[in-house]
Structure formats: structure tokens, C-alpha cells
């Protein structure tokens, strides 16, 4: 969107004696998130001894380190030596198509949202499945996938009181974001539009327990109950049922 959101220099925020939060830009923005992905890759390649893990999010990276091996200053120096991180040439971009059964028990807030926006449920489904989304981050719980790119018409504040449990695999919207829930029950204050049989997380898929990563593109494809049930059986058998295209950018 706007590159104004990118900071000229990273901002360092101390997160205790064993972690550093690196902020690379302002707000929820595709360019800012792309820089997070680039810095994540560059830092991972640099492999400073003492870094335990890196957690990329919308606009920050949380770098966890062993303070008896590496100092916070040394992490900051390492980041500055990589700044600005360049996007690698010949990067593989992945685009996923995720099937969704909308409405009814699968999406308990679809009718409410149509009423709230004074439109039809078909219009909501059409708008939600027409957009191309970017995966901004995986967080909060295993495989919960946060997406940007939601049609502004569908931006609606979150529920004042979160629900304690929403169904596994829920496809939801909240504010300017969309999300795909993992196959686990979870609390959520977002609006449930549908449900996908795709498992963004499945520990039994040992080679690929997590499907999505930051920077991936996602589209939704409406399906009916019968197709949903068939895909659910395939997913249960360990199949990755989301369609994936890969292309070099």
C-alpha cells in the first residue's frame, strides 16, 4: 500500500534480558510485513550464535537469545549490519486455494453480518472469496493464520465479548483482517463466516505440520456440504487438501 509505513531504521524495544523486539514499520501493511519476512530470512541466514528463535509478526520480529552467549547490543549490531534487508532474487511465492463451507452451523455469524451490512449473505460470500489475501503471521495458537487484504466493505469491529470457544477450522473476519483457525477449539472475538476442512496445523503430518507461512497468498473457494464432508475425510487421512501453486517472483 504505502511505503510511508516503513521505518528508515529499525526500532529496538527491549523484551526482558533474553529477547529483543525489532519494529520495522507502522501498522498492518503488506510492505512492512514483507520487510519483516526479509529481515527474518536475513537474520536466519546470518545465524548469530546464541539466537534461540525468531518470531516474525505483522510489523515486528521477536528475537529470543541466550543472554549468557549473546548480548542485546550484539543482536542490534547484527541487525544494523543487515539493514535494509534485501528481498532475495528468485523467491518462490506460494498461492493457496482454501475451500470454505459458508454459513449455517459452519459460519454462525454470516446472517448477522449480512444484516449488519444491509446486504445478502451471497454478497458477503462473493466479496470474501473474491479477494486475494496475504498471510501476515501465524500466531496466538498453533497454525492460526492471520490474513490481510479483506474487502473494506467487510471491515466490522470485533465482538465486544469474545466467545470462549469457536469451532475448529473457522474462517472469520475481525476489523480489517481475516483469519483461518487451526483444527482446534479456541476463544475468539471475530465473526465466523464459514469453516474449512483444511488443517493449517496437524502434528501427525510430521514433514509438514504447518501449511502456511508469512508472505503466502490465499484465496477462498466456496464449497457445499457434500464436498466439505468429502474433503474432511481426506484431511482426516492426512492429505493436504488445500491447492497450492508456486511461482517465482
Amino acid at each position, binding site marked *: 500500500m504505502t511505503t510511508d509505513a516503513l521505518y528508515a531504521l529499525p526500532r529496538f*524495544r*527491549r*523484551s*526482558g*534480558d*533474553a*529477547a529483543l*523486539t525489532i519494529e520495522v514499520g507502522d*501498522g*498492518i501493511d503488506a510492505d512492512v510485513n514483507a520487510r519483516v519476512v526479509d529481515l527474518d530470512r536475513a537474520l536466519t541466514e546470518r545465524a548469530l550464535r546464541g539466537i*534461540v*528463535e*525468531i*518470531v*516474525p*509478526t*505483522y*510489523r*515486528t*520480529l*521477536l528475537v*529470543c537469545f541466550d*543472554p*549468557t552467549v549473546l*548480548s*542485546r547490543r550484539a543482536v542490534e549490531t547484527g541487525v544494523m549490519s543487515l539493514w535494509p534487508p534485501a528481498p532475495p532474487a528468485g523467491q518462490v511465492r506460494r498461492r493457496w486455494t482454501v475451500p470454505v463451507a459458508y454459513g449455517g452451523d459452519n459460519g454462525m455469524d454470516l446472517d448477522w453480518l449480512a444484516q449488519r451490512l444491509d446486504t445478502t449473505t451471497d454478497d458477503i460470500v462473493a466479496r470474501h472469496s473474491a479477494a486475494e489475501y496475504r498471510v501476515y*503471521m*501465524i*500466531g*496466538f*495458537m*498453533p*497454525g*492460526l493464520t*492471520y490474513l490481510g487484504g479483506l474487502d473494506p466493505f467487510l471491515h466490522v469491529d470485533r465482538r465486544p465479548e469474545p466467545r470462549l470457544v469457536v469451532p475448529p477450522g473457522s474462517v472469520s473476519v475481525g476489523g480489517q483482517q481475516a483469519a483461518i483457525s*487451526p483444527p*482446534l477449539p*479456541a476463544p475468539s472475538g471475530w465473526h465466523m463466516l464459514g469453516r474449512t476442512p483444511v488443517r493449517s*496445523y496437524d*502434528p501427525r503430518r510430521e514433514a509438514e*505440520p*504447518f501449511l502456511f507461512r508469512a508472505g503466502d497468498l490465499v484465496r477462498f473457494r466456496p464449497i457445499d456440504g457434500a464436498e466439505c464432508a468429502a474433503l474432511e475425510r481426506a484431511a482426516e487421512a492426512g492429505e493436504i487438501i488445500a491447492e497450492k501453486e508456486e511461482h517465482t517472483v
Partner: protein
Amino acid sequence: MSVHLEVIEPGLATTIQDLGRRGWQRFGISESGAMDPVALATANALVGNTVGTAALEVTLAGPVLACINGDTRIALAGADFAMAIDGRPVASHETHDLKSGQHLVIGAARDGARAVLAVSGGFQIKPMLGSVATHSRSQLGGLNGGPLRKGDLLPLALPGLPGRPHLMVSPTNRVRPNGPVRVLLGPQDDAFSAEGIATFLGSDYAVTPLSDRMGCRLEGPRVAHASAVGIVSDGIVFGSIQIPGNGQPIILLADRQTTGGYPKIATVISADLPRLAQLRPGERVHFQSIEEDEAVKLVREMRRQIDRVGDSMIEVHGGSNLTSEHLLASNLISGVISALEWVQADVATS
């Protein structure tokens, strides 16, 4: 036939824990692992295991376990819990042989909230994502991705009684530290007014009963935000202190969610994280802001303590008066100086 511990009663919230899962937080996987890693190291060292071997974490009220088809050696470290083997009271922080058919009852915590029960050789449980640590909300780790249940069978990896002396932790190494919980301000201390930070550092907060392995919820004077209550969600560490809209601090712990959108006023220093495991509902907490250099010095000291955990142990010989139960009966453990004097006097006269 395999040797195992059978869960007769599961206790309040007993889980299998090791050092937790690192490296998966970017996929939303919580770290989990023992809330008190010093207790994990201590219990393991007592029974001759490496410090990170998986063990049982018990909380406030412990389980009843039966040893089936063979023997093992056990030890409990961390908080002091009432314990008995087949009705005979035994002491925490000391090794005991648990013979085939015997029942181990772990009662209520007498001080602190959590302890670790290690068995010699550890449990034979398949790791998930590199660890057997239980994280209930992710349905990961342990036997079934949750706390122990009645009837669970915990297979022992290396049954039998080790041919080494019984050990106890020196009484000087059982003292629960008190004083303020030390923090470094940040990462979002700029989201709070000067008055809000002064309130946070200048007030006592009570631990509420809603606390668990995910977070320690506190109640006390409201911490004022400077501006908006929300931030763009970012990563959270063990010890992050977030302040939601109601101004009541929550210290995020081992089972915390990986990311969150509330501003974090401060972070508990690594060396004080084990203390958080021992906070009981109703207990009061006071925070103190310290310098980063001091925090790094303290984490080095804690590492040394873990590396040399075996040095603080005393051999227990059959028939000796020098047992924890004796010390407890003399009501000396809480007073370190007098306990030491007593031990020295006892050694001198024996």
C-alpha cells in the same frame, strides 16, 4: 511386562513437562515446559537424570500414583509438598525408592505452588515437535495432550533401582526467595503514562485464583495507559507483563499464547521466572525495575546454579538422623541459619 506408574488420582493439574518446545513459536506453538526449571533440574539430579529429563509437574494438590510391575526411585523438588509412600510420610527434596505395588501420595503444597516429581530414567513418551511438554490448549505432549487423568499409565524408560546412594538437597538450597519480583521495563512501556508506571512499580498486587500456567492474573491499583490500549499483535516471552484495558497486570507464563495485542509494560528477569511458578492464589507481588546488566549477571548465576545443582546435595545413609523429615520435625527448615547450625552440630557429634 512394562513397568509404569498408574494414576490413581490425577491431582489438581498434574502434567508431564520437560524444558519445553523452542523454535516453533513462529507457527503459534507455545513454549510450555516446566514452570520452575530449577526444580526440574533439582528433581532430576536427585534421581541421577540429566537436568531436562521429562518429569511430572504438580500444582497445589498432587496426584496418587501406584508403581506397577517393577521399582523406581523418585524425588520431588520445588515447593514443599506433603508426601507419603504406603501411608508412611516421606520428605520432599530427597530420594525415595518406590517398590512394585507401592502407592505414592502427594498431598497439598505446604509452601509455594508447584513442584516437580522426577523418576530415575524418566518416562518413555513419544515427543511431539521435539518435546513431551504438555500444552493442553494445543493438545500437545504428555500422554494425550492434556493433564494426567485417572487410570493413565506412565511407562518408565529405565525401571529398577539405581545403585547409587540416596540424596537430599541441602537445606540452604530450599529457601524460597522473597522480596520484589525484578523486571526490565519494556517493550511497550511508552504505552503507559508516567503515573501508570509509578503505580505499577509502587503497588502491591494480589495473585487471583484465575491464574494458571498460561498467565498469572493480578489484582490491584489500576495501571493507566498513555494512549490506545491495543497494539498491533507481536510476540510474547515468558515473563511478559501485559496490561489489558482494565489496567490489571497479567504475567504471561510457560503456556502463554505466542502473540498478543495488549501493550507490555515490563518483562520479568530470567532469574526470577522460577519464582513465578511458586506464587499461590491470594499471595501479594511487588515489582522492582532493575538495570539490564544486573539482570544478565543474575541469569548467569542461575545458570551456574543449574549446572552445579548436584553440588548442593548431601548423601543420605540408612539410619542417619540427617533426613529432611527430621529437619522438618525440628521445624528448622524455614530458618536457614539455625538449620545449618543444627546440621553442623549434628555432623560434629556423630
